[in-house]
């Protein structure tokens, strides 16, 4: 039973983890994209449609990534090239995504989906308890683990990661050094969108293999909150995502065995935790300075 519970936690945490890692890279480049929910649902609907039409969930995954990425480029064009307000544009992207996904997916409502099967790694998946948990998952979960390690390495061990962080902290200085700020930011936004699309694909191919309008149900917003919760550190995102997932599942189990906890309070816990973390990090000036991208949310127009 413990194994089953933990498996459920992995399922609940994976969409948060992937979308939050994507958004972390975006924010590290100094761009705040509030359109995660919109990009995620675009990924969900296109992944589902592609899987249905081709009968192959792997095509669905690719379609989800492309849909999320392509959709994020609208945001990139408006905020980076046209220098529009990032907050307003991000919100518009969410609203547009939810509406557009509902429209294109209309004829796919009420169809049972194709579930992406797990790939068990021989021998390793036979280890009791953690075996199936870590090595008996589907490909998207493996990608999510790789994303955490990959971004950690990229951000802090590579030259390109340093470039990304410098653009997020001081775009003027980066520009003066000959770095193309808009190119870096475009790539970051594209990466973020692709991740959100992949998270959406996970929802409609694994979590609940179906397409229903609005099925992301606010997960994009939790992913956004997670980036702040993690104070822009990839390794803390995995902690946060799994913590949020575990709290959701734990409260259901508590209810089912009859432990009386106010379920409304537990539903609000992820948000409360984020506010607490925000208060804590804003009190510690030094901590804020180390990890928060200094130019987050500010547009950059190079002097010509």
């Amino acid at each position, binding site marked *: 039973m413990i194994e089953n519970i933990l498996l459920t936690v992995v*399922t609940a945490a994976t969409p948060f983890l992937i979308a939050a890692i994507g958004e972390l890279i975006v924010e590290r480049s100094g761009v705040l994209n509030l359109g995660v929910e919109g990009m995620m649902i675009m990924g969900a609907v296109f992944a589902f449609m592609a899987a249905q039409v081709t009968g192959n969930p792997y095509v669905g995954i690719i379609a989800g990534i492309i849909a999320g990425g392509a959709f994020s480029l609208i945001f990139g064009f408006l905020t980076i090239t046209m220098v529009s*307000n990032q907050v307003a544009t991000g919100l518009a992207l969410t609203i547009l995504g939810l509406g557009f996904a509902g429209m294109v997916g209309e004829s796919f409502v009420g169809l049972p989906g194709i579930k992406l099967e797990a790939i068990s790694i021989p021998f390793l998946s036979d280890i009791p308890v953690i075996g199936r948990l870590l090595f008996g998952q589907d490909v998207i979960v493996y990608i999510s683990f790789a994303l955490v390690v990959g971004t950690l390495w990229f951000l802090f061990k590579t030259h390109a990661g340093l470039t990304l962080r410098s653009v997020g902290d001081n775009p003027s200085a980066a520009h003066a050094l000959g770095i193309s700020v808009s190119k870096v930011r475009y790539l970051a936004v594209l990466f973020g969108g692709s991740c959100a699309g992949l998270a959406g694909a996970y929802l409609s191919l694994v979590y609940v293999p179906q397409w*229903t309008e609005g099925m992301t*149900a606010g997960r994009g917003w939790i992913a956004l909150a997670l980036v702040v919760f993690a104070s822009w550190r990839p390794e803390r995102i995995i902690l946060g995502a799994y913590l949020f997932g575990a709290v959701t599942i734990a409260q259901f*189990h508590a209810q089912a065995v009859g432990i*009386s906890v106010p379920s409304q309070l537990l539903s609000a816990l992820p948000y409360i935790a984020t506010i607490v973390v925000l208060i804590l990090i804003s009190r510690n000036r030094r901590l804020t300075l180390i990890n928060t991208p200094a130019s987050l949310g500010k547009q950059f127009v190079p002097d010509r």
Partner: protein
Amino acid sequence: MKRRIFMLGAAALTAAMGLAASVTAQAEDKLKVGFVYIGPPGDFGWTYQHDQGRKAIEEALGDKVETTFLENVPEGGDSERAIERLARSGHGLIFTTSFGYMDPTLKVAKKFPKVKFEHATGYKRADNVTTYSSRFYEGRYLLGQIAARESKKGVAGYIASFPIPEVIRGINAFVLGAQSVNPDFKLKVVWVNTWFDPGKEADAAKTLVDQGVDIITQHTDSTAAMQVAAERGIKAFGQASDMIEFGKETQLTSIIDNWDDYYIARTKAVLDGSWKSEETWGGMADEMVHIAPFTNMADETKAEAEKTMAAIKSKEFHPFTGPIMKQDGSVWLKEGEVADDGTLLGMNFYVKGVDDKFPQ
């Protein structure tokens, strides 16, 4: 440069809002009928069935009417603005289709005395506000009986949304039905605090399976729980619409909400001027509660279910017939006594046998 871009952004936002709202163009002589939905019409559950009703109006009355809907409207303050927007834009009849729209509907109705309002599942009325609902508990009782006959472990799981009378009544009816067959039958209740979140509904369903239930029933709006049940090889009941496609070997039956006839009748009443504020609470006898074909169950269970269904339909039998005790052991209904609609509509207590602490 900057201003133009801002306007572009604003235009995109407005366009997106328009998409989400899908308000149709105006026409003066037609009756405009508005709907406010809690979820998306594509949820394949509660809202989907209301939207089928809206389409039925259009089909039946053709060019005499024009329908509009606002989807994903949260309960509470936001819904008041949404309802008011419909009233202001010339709608003559407005259906608000979730319990939490009750007070907002009444508030808006006061400001627009000429507009007719219809609020689903509530209990407060006014001269221009009618309430309507279906006696889903008739179906729930039937489900309880089927569950008790088909469950091998003697325990079922119930995915509940919010602790409102409608949901409490459903839980009570299910338990009474189950215990009429097996007095020791247990029900595990999990509250998810949402009407629609496929992910959470799936999580709750998995939790219940892990906790050892072998039948799941739900009072939430998506097909997620049915899929989980199918995957884990247990049985489940559909909700609001026929969900057999999501569990061909899983679904026992499903309570289907049928709003079509009611919506057409009420719209006709506005058109010919006979509309009055009233209270409609229709059940199986009124064709407002349909039951999907009985599938994946023993012949005997099926026969018994058909018997109960016939008795409820002919009003020979009422699921809330005494003796029934409250959860705390006090007597609610004496032998042979039948619950009155007032108590049922405002139900705020569990009956004896529900294995869950009453949510406060």
